[in-house]
């Protein structure tokens, strides 16, 4: 039996195509992935991402605990600030990638992937057990999350709140505010490569807020376009670019691994060794000509030597051509190289390109 978000019924009533994702019954598309993708790139769209899981980490030892748990440095956050971070195993592979907010000096919120919910909870609580002054609380069930993304996101939401949304800096949030009269945390974050906000609301208020946003003419966007939007922006997806066997350094998110400031985060030795030796593999962007690469397809050099495999691949609605991310042997991982991607029985030409594939124009 699939889990439902507070909005699953709405999605079904409004004709969404549904699929399983992270154990949830989720909308893939409403009017079409390309149209939804373009709405977010050029105007605005809203996403039900209530499947994401939230854990509170509280207590005098919370900052120190989180610094040990993840590769980035939560203790350096100011109150109201957020960060993106990988969380690693001792061998350097990735447990998950997540956001951490600092709600007060001793209160943090972790937002983790739905598909890793059970594994993460076990991992976090197991490591918290050795900290007597840290308490971890799972608030996933009572917490819904609605992302409003696109160049018009802030102006479209402005009528619903007294908070000057433009004053919330990127990767900052304001807690316990009102949106459409409903209690919400407002966060200047997202997973689309566009400007936008993410609204954390109590599950019981999610439908009322969603319907208010729909009344403002903000179209709902499914997970299909969420995936093409994040891929164009080269944002990693756990299970693809990051896995238990792929380190954050290999995935290209090494800037979220902080070597100084915390003595011994989990995985530090393995990652340091990887770095000292030189990375054997790297995630690289590819453009294809003549077929769409999908996750798992093999990548060969122009001389037909195996170079690696595709981690994510799709059609880019913005570039109007197939794009992919691939984990390749580092010796081949330079820009402008020619490759062949095995697409079913054929080998399709590809070229390594600079990423992100899409960067939003400055406003």
């Amino acid at each position: 039996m699939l889990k439902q978000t507070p909005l699953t019924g709405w999605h079904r009533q409004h004709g969404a195509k549904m699929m399983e994702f992270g154990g949830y019954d989720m909308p893939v598309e409403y009017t079409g992935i390309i149209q939804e993708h373009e709405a977010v790139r050029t105007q605005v769209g809203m996403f039900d991402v209530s499947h994401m899981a939230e854990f509170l980490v509280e207590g005098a030892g919370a900052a120190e605990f989180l610094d040990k748990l993840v590769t980035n440095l939560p203790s350096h956050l100011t109150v109201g600030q957020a960060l993106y971070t990988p969380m690693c195993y001792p061998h350097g592979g990735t447990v998950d990638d997540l956001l951490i907010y600092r709600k007060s000096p001793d209160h943090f919120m972790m937002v983790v992937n739905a598909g890793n919910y059970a594994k993460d909870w076990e991992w976090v609580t197991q490591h918290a057990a050795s900290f007597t002054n840290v308490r971890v609380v799972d608030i996933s069930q009572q917490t819904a999350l609605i992302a409003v993304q696109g160049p018009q996101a802030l102006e479209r939401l402005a009528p619903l709140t007294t908070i000057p949304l433009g004053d919330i800096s990127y990767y900052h949030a304001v807690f316990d505010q009102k949106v459409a009269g409903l209690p919400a945390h407002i966060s200047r974050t997202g997973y689309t490569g566009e400007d936008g906000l993410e609204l954390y609301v109590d599950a019981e208020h999610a439908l009322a807020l969603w319907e208010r946003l729909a009344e403002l003419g903000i179209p709902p966007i499914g997970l299909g376009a969420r995936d093409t939007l994040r891929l164009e922006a080269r944002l990693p997806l756990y299970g693809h670019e990051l896995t238990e066997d792929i380190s954050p350094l290999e995935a290209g998110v090494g800037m979220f691994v902080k070597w100084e400031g915390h003595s011994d985060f989990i995985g530090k030795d393995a990652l340091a060794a990887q770095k000292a030796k030189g990375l054997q593999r790297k995630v690289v962007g590819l453009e294809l000509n003549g077929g769409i690469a999908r996750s798992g397809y093999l990548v060969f050099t122009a001389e037909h030597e195996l170079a690696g495999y595709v981690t994510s691949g799709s059609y880019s609605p913005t570039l109007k051509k197939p794009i992919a991310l691939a984990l390749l042997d580092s010796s081949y991982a330079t820009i402008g190289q020619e490759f062949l991607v095995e697409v079913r029985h054929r080998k399709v030409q590809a070229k390594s390109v600079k990423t992100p594939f899409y960067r939003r124009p400055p406003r």
Partner: protein
Amino acid sequence: MNIPEILKYTRDHEWLDDKGTVGITDYAQESLGDVVFVELPAIGQTLKAGESFGVVESVKSVSDLYSPADGTVVAVNEALSTTPELINQDPYGQGWIIRIEITGQTEELLDSQAYQQQVEGE
């Protein structure tokens, strides 16, 4: 859903007209979503009934195309290589995929009523 009475249908959601033209049904294009790539066979290629002759890819998924009959490919819709969205916009018209000259047996072909029943059962 549009299921023209004049056409025959396979259980794999393809249609066939009396000239040997083959395409995918309105139901199939709707299920696939935005079509962004079509792999077409070469003219002159011989096909067996039920054999895969190409693929239709949407943003999210890949779907094989199966020949409704033994035959030879006599025409392919070249327009699909630059405008694959024709399959979404006009699945029974400009979104046709190939034309075959039928030389032998066909797959089990359904009339529009039987196909409608199959789709409603899915």
